[in-house]
């Protein structure tokens, strides 16, 4: 089956610090198909978030896009007038961020912050927008939404705030949701619920998702295709199943091997983490870092031996 036309297509995207500074992204190429969930993995500083922010047009100075194109439907976002681009933001392409604790305006009520979406993109008046905001809160499974709409961000837990962020992002039923580490700052017990919510809502609306994460488990569960980033380059792109069973690039293999796995500790010693080239300095290789903690497996084995 031939691939449908991509929803978003990024070509040779280059991001630079200032005019003559170092490059952060060295020519990223990626396509996001309508309705698919595309995962972007890589370690901190590999350029995942910068890619997401470039698509949104939210790069902070001195970062700037120095070359390339970002096509959404038939328009190059980088050539759009600021006003036209702003209209797309939030309406057609939405984004949620890593830190739900600080991502909401502390002095505006939750309801107002969601309602603002309907006011600026749908032209509703405030009372009507506030009613829609309560519905939106209900759709992200926030209990007693009417009461919560009157609450302020500091009165909500991190998980609830991230649900509010999702309600804001999906308020206008966008075509693409960029989720930048949406669960990293959350408690593990809350993470699964938030991810499931994003998955369900986007599947129901046919919203494509660009999921930025360093958590391979999250990516494996959520995404159909995965792109692996390393130092500003997209070095591998595969279907999720293929990537996890047969990683092609040595970096991807290293990244997969660096996952902590339950029950993988070896008795009588610690398993070495895979050392990635150019990240572990040559003179530090093969040395054990001093540790004060004996791994649980070793302790259990010793206890059995003495018993």
């Amino acid at each position, binding site marked *: 089956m031939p691939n449908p036309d991509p929803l978003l297509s990024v070509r040779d995207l280059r991001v630079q610090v200032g005019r003559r500074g170092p490059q952060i992204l060295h020519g990223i190429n990626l396509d996001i198909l309508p309705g698919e969930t595309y995962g972007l993995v890589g370690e901190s500083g590999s350029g995942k978030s910068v890619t997401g922010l470039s698509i*949104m047009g*939210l790069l902070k100075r001195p970062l700037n896009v120095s070359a390339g194109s970002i096509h959404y439907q038939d328009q190059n976002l980088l050539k759009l007038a600021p006003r036209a681009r*702003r*209209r*797309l*933001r*939030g*309406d057609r392409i*939405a*984004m949620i*961020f890593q*830190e739900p604790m*600080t*991502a*909401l*305006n*502390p*002095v*505006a*009520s939750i309801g107002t912050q969601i309602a*603002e*979406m309907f006011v*600026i*993109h749908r032209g509703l008046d405030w009372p009507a927008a506030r009613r829609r905001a309560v519905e939106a809160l209900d759709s992200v499974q926030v209990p007693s939404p009417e009461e919560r709409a009157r609450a*302020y961000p*500091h009165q909500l837990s991190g998980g609830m705030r991230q649900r509010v*962020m999702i309600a*804001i*992002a999906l308020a206008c039923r966008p075509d693409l949701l960029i989720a930048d580490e949406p669960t990293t700052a959350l408690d593990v017990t809350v993470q699964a619920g938030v991810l499931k919510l994003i998955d369900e809502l986007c599947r129901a609306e046919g919203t494509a998702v660009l999921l930025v994460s360093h958590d391979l488990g999250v990516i494996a569960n959520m995404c159909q295709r995965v792109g692996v980033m390393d130092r500003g380059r997209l070095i591998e792109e595969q279907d999720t199943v293929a990537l996890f069973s047969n990683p092609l690039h040595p970096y991807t293999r290293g990244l997969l091997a660096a996952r902590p796995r339950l029950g993988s500790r070896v008795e009588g010693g610690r398993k070495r983490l895979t050392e990635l080239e150019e990240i572990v300095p040559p003179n530090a290789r093969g040395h054990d870092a001093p540790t004060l903690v004996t791994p649980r497996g070793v302790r259990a084995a010793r206890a059995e031996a003495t018993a």
Partner: protein
Amino acid sequence: MMGFVLRRVLQMIPTILAVVLIIFFIFSVVPGSFLTSLMAEGRNMTNADVLAQMNAQFGLDDPIPVRLWNYVSGLLQFDLGISYRTREPVTSVLGPRLWPSVQLAIAAMTFAAAVGIPLGFMAALRPGSLFDSLTMVTAVSGLSVPEFWLGLLLMYVFALQLGWLPSFGYQENSLRHLVLPAIALGVSPMALLARTTRAGVLDVMNADFVRTARAKGVSEPRLVRAHITRNVLVLVLTTMGLQIGSLMGQAIVIEKLFSWPGIGSLLVDSVSVRDIPVVQGAVLVIVLWFLVINMLVDIAYALIDPRIKVA
């Protein structure tokens, strides 16, 4: 909310008590007295009978605890004592001075806020621009210029050279008389407000929720109006409250310079003749003003910032 206001008012009581004690003890141990200052004026006060009579009249012979008791019980009945100099009750000496002082403080603060806050905002929206640099240089100069010199300069230009405004004096309901002293007094809080606002706006501009607002597609004017302003206001309000509270005390020099009949000039005059009851009263008024303004600022906080608990 009413409970919050009430609690905030009650919290002032211990502070006021402490202030009253400090004022009383300081002025009962300062060297010199009204009588010695009369001698300095050349009057012959060596007559022991006269001294004893005056000491008895003002209750200066009583031991300190008795005088403290008399002072505090008088205060509770709004009796601040009798002025040594005019032999009038202190309350009726202070009364007519209060309104001019409040007027001057409010006018100076209005000027400071009306000029300083917009300047700080505009500077922060174009950081590093020529406008930004000019504003901040002006702000530093404003903070560094001595008030009396600025006052003299204003008098020279606007009263003497241009003849637009009166150079000194006070008239009831006369804005013309208020302008020059208010500006002279308001320049330094204006400069401080401009700097605080600029720093506050720059700080808030980098906040995560501003990025969220941009991601929502909020326009720049709406971003400043609906998201940044209220968050900055909390910071600015603190500076404003502290400034307006201390303006009455700071006004001493300006009041003397412009012959403004406020609490500050009364304080200076009374100190120079050791009219202790009036000095105590004036200091008490200045402190009370500070406390009341601070309380109002706290209440305003609770209205602006939902994170401040009012329950």
